[in-house]
């Protein structure tokens, strides 16, 4: 398996400016470490040869980068207009009760982290949530329960 440095070096070749490579590099770092630690951001900066603060700017701008540890499954519920109109907030409440955590928290067993995010770009199938890299669309409470159940089984 290629290490992070090699992967970032390779991907950075596609860009005219190393700063343009920050986002894909951060994704690679997040993939490796689970979330963006201080050391991970410094490593990305060092590999790309740019100031650490430039990496930190990008990492803090986007919600897709986790600055805190997240559970095995990171549930990101869209609460932007279309999803909100179709009941996203009810879903969030349901998830809070079901998982016993608040938004921004992780379950004790380390399985689930619940977040609300802005538009996921799938308004046609609202309400939508994203768990890790997978989209779940046209959600209802029942569908959500089913998804959580499947993930729990998958994990055990």
């Amino acid at each position, binding site marked *: 398996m290629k290490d992070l440095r090699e992967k970032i070096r390779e991907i950075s070749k596609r860009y005219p400016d190393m700063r343009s490579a920050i986002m894909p590099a951060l994704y690679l770092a997040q993939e490796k470490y689970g979330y963006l630690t*201080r050391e991970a*951001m410094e490593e990305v900066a060092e590999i790309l040869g*740019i*100031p*650490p*603060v*430039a990496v*930190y*700017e990008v990492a*803090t*701008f986007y919600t897709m980068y986790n600055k805190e540890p997240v559970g095995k499954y990171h549930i990101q519920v869209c609460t932007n207009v279309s999803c909100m109109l179709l009941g996203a907030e009810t879903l969030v409440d349901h998830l809070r009760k079901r998982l016993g955590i608040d938004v921004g928290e992780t379950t004790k067993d380390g399985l689930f982290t619940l977040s609300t995010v802005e538009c996921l770009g799938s308004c046609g199938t609202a309400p939508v949530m994203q768990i890790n890299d997978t989209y779940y669309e046209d959600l209802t409470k029942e569908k959500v329960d089913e998804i959580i159940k499947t993930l729990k089984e998958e994990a055990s």
Partner: protein
Amino acid sequence: MATVTIDGKTITVEDGTLILDAARSLGIEIPTFCYQAKLSRLASCRLCLVEIEGQKKLQPSCATPVLDGMVIHTQSPAVVTARRAMLEFLLANHPLDCPVCDKGGECELQDKVFAFGPREGRFTEWKRTFHSKDYVLSPVIIKNANRCVQCQRCVRICEEIVGASALGSIGRGVKTEETSFMRAWLNCDHCGNCIEVCPVGSLMSLPYRYKARPWDLKEVDTVCPYCGTGCTLTVGLRDGQLLRVRSRRQTGVNEETLCVKGRFGLDFVVHEDRIKRPMIRKNDVLVPVSWREVSNYLKERLLPLKGKGDSVGGLLSAQMTNEEIYTFQKLFREVFGSNNIDSSSRWPVASEGDFYPALLDLISTGIYRGNLREFLSADTLLVAGSNLTDENPVTEYAVRYTLSVLPLHLFILSSRPSRLDKAAKGVKRYIPGREVRILASVLKEVMKAHEEDLKRTFGDVGEVIQGEVIEDDFVRALSSRLLGSRRISILVGTDLLRSPLAVDAFRVISNLIKVLRAAGKECGLQFLFDRSNQMGAIDMGAFPRDGGMGFGSLLEASRDGRISFLYVLGEDPVLNYPDGRLVREALSQVGLLLVQDAFMTETARMAHVVLPGATFAEKDGTFTSNEGRVQRVRAFYNPPFEARRDLEIISHIASLLGVDLETDPSSIFAEIKDLISPYRGVDYEGLGDNGLFTGHEKGVDKGLHPVAIRDVALEGWGFITGNHLYHSGYLSQRSRLLGSLIDAPFLEIGKEGADSLGVREGDSVKVRRNGQSIELKVRVKEGLPEGLLFIPENFGSLSINNLMEKGVYPFPVEVRKNG
């Protein structure tokens, strides 16, 4: 050209002019926040919105260029309303804690709200709060993010001008915070330019915190005493105490920037090490005496030496004013009849007799006396022998700025890597002593391409370069670039002045300039002197002339017992002369060693007589910067205890010998103006905020100098020395604030070198030479040439000059890992 109408007034301006600048040239003031003249355009604060007829939406005048025929309104109801709304938005989250804010009274937000409204606050919501307590970002910088208006001037100046890139915009939207990586302690230059540009009290000076209200400050404009860049600065005093230093917008070479030494390093003037009263050595102990007693003593000792030229000599600091230097050399030349005068004890290290003639020839051939910013507006810039980042930080800012706005091609020939390397088209590292071969190789290439022009100008030039030249990427790239340029500027740094082959280097550069000019190009040079008035010292004639001895020869003569009187003014050769053994031995053999200084230096400790002089803070006069710009130094303190102004002391000594010398700076300057031709057009009274430039004296063209290429051998390890960003001499050593930024000297070593020694960053190593050794912490610096080490000079505790030897450079040493 475009003709536009702004508020009913018509003006014709260059295409591409911003509406804001067009308005300002009409005297119409448009308020701004995020706009800063030398920074990239952000157009985020929307305060400078104007109405353009035919366009529905208001446009930011700081980012909108004029178009021919535009009709613009800056005071229309729509503009006034929008402006007020923008300020209301800024106030929505601003804590309005003005009573405890250092910025209160000189805050741009206060001023703008006062001028443009709103007159009432409508927000009843909670304010965004990042933190309840201000957090410290460095020993000199403290942050309050709640007050920030997100103009990002700090972020931009840090990246675009300073090149430190230590600040960023963190988060987004209303939660954006301009701060450091992880909000942690800044790894930066601590220059405080972020504080200077902050319009509100978000980035603040920690030493100035809660010390004064700005309207209580008495402000005095003066010139930085550190390096030769010659930044103007304004000191702020309350109850006679120096509390802060700031720069002034669009003024001087520095234009609202300063480096860490200028902004935070002036506290040396109140260091407890000040010499309080005159002292005479009695029974081998320096005993404080009255001025009367010391005067009688000096009179008795000096009278027999009047007119005894050869056995007396003087060394003075190039951080003295022109008037002091002029008077000092006059004392020696006219009263003692001696030409044994020098103004630096740190170079030359070799071929002393030829050094000044070669340097003066280079000056008369090539120097460009004029604005640095104009000097940098060239096609090609060659920086030779300097780590600009450490040696002349503000000159580096100017270079970085120029690179961002003009198609300037930068080439760097330097022993040490620097932050500018990244921006250069060509970088060449070398071991000092090998620069001549590199420069001569470039010269040869250029001469080859212009044989006809040279013949026409110089006749048959013969073999100008004797010896083997090199052909490498740097030489090829630089030569071809020089051939393709119309205007070429060269910055010559102190590394070249220290080189054992300095004389040859000067001659090659002088030849290069002459050849490029013969080829029809504009070419000039400026020096990167690291002392505030080195240029002035040379102009004033503070060097050996007509067979006089330079400081190195004076030391040798002293060692042999041939010097009866040595007068050292404001220099500490015991600490910084590059041969510790020689300087100690020599000074102990001088008949009468007189040291005049503000501080109790190592040299003063060896003196027979010590006189308490003044710092720059206590005197009036002028400095001449590396640009040849004459600027006013203004006193803001009185000499403490029984110290006196140096000019008064020099003239007092003359009076003991029955000669009257002027003590009024403006009268002395008038004499300088009469006698020293570059100063002919400079009027002391006319030195305004920006000073005045000395004029160029046309040198006599003596044709090309033949140069034989020699090499300096270095086997194993050798170290070089120079300034550090936080330290450049015994003044910075006495700054408490600068001391808090760097606690110990260090050894810079290349990556490969560190690996070969098995040392890592922070490890301790022992550096040995001739039975002397010192211990240092390692700093790994990528890009130092193989075998070369760097140790900053002027760390008093270290006495690195014990490892140095006259005529040698770099200094060969053994290095071993400690323990």
